[in-house]
């Protein structure tokens, strides 16, 4: 099988790049989740400060891990 190396390299690179991109997406997702947690904390502080009447509680339950 001549030139097998090139065939192997081409497909390996394709899958490697896709894999790396998915990793990148997951990292972004983690950052977004952290930001979300931070904002929920701020929201909680805001709710305490203004009293129960002024801020609507989040429409969904607290984050599930």
């Amino acid at each position: 099988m001549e030139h097998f190396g090139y065939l192997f390299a081409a497909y390996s690179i394709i899958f490697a790049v896709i894999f790396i991109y998915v990793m990148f997406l997951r990292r972004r997702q983690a950052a977004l989740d952290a930001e979300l947690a931070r904002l929920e904390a701020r929201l909680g502080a805001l709710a305490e400060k203004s009293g129960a009447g002024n801020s609507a509680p989040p429409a969904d339950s607290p984050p599930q891990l």
Partner: protein
Amino acid sequence: MDTATRDYLTPDPLPSVSQTRGKGNNRGSWFGFATLALMIAALFMIFDYVPTEIDEGIVQRIFYFHVPCAWVAFAAFGLVAVAGMLYLWLGDQIWDDLGYAGAETGMIFCTLMLVSGSLWARPIWGVWWTWDSRLTTTFILWLMYCGYLMIRASADDTPQIARFAAVVGIVAALDVPIVIVSVRLWRTIHPAVLVTKQGGHGLQDPRMIATLLVSLAAMTALWGWLLMIRFAQLRTRTRLNTVAMQIEFAHAAAGDQRPIG
């Protein structure tokens, strides 16, 4: 505080963590599995089903991923342009997010097309790169992708930047047909030293066509899946930015001296 003010100061409910994993989580998983199934089918056909091409040997099998990558790269570019037009017309941030997701994913496939093309050219023609009409056009497309992503990466996410990116996406997409025509004319009158067989592809065996079609479906599904994930992420980010702003405003209105950020 009167009701109107109170409503305005109340931040939107935050998306729960499960929501941030992509709207319609189930839809995303189904699509992911479908993509995986198509991929496996395509790989089987590429490596076991389709016969080896006579002239080029097994290296020719790169073709079955190389061409679908090109197709996706161009389709994604079209998506970026359409999303840009909708953004400029309707002003809704959702279209800008779609355009950005399309550009990022499209860039991936454009890069893969060029890399696979190079790895195919080297054993067949002896050079790592050749300026034939298809590779040249895709390279120019790649440069335009770079420009678009440079705009987005190098600046803060203001609506002004989004508008500029939309304009660039539209204009670049309109330019692509002229690029194709001019490059083809360029290479026809003065053909490259190495004339590739990419025109017409010369697919003798119907099994080759079938394999190509399945690979095309698999690659498109893969793009769609990645696009969905990235798009959902950007939507979440947009919503978070909005909510963060509202919280700051509410804090300020409540007399809170906490600094922003």
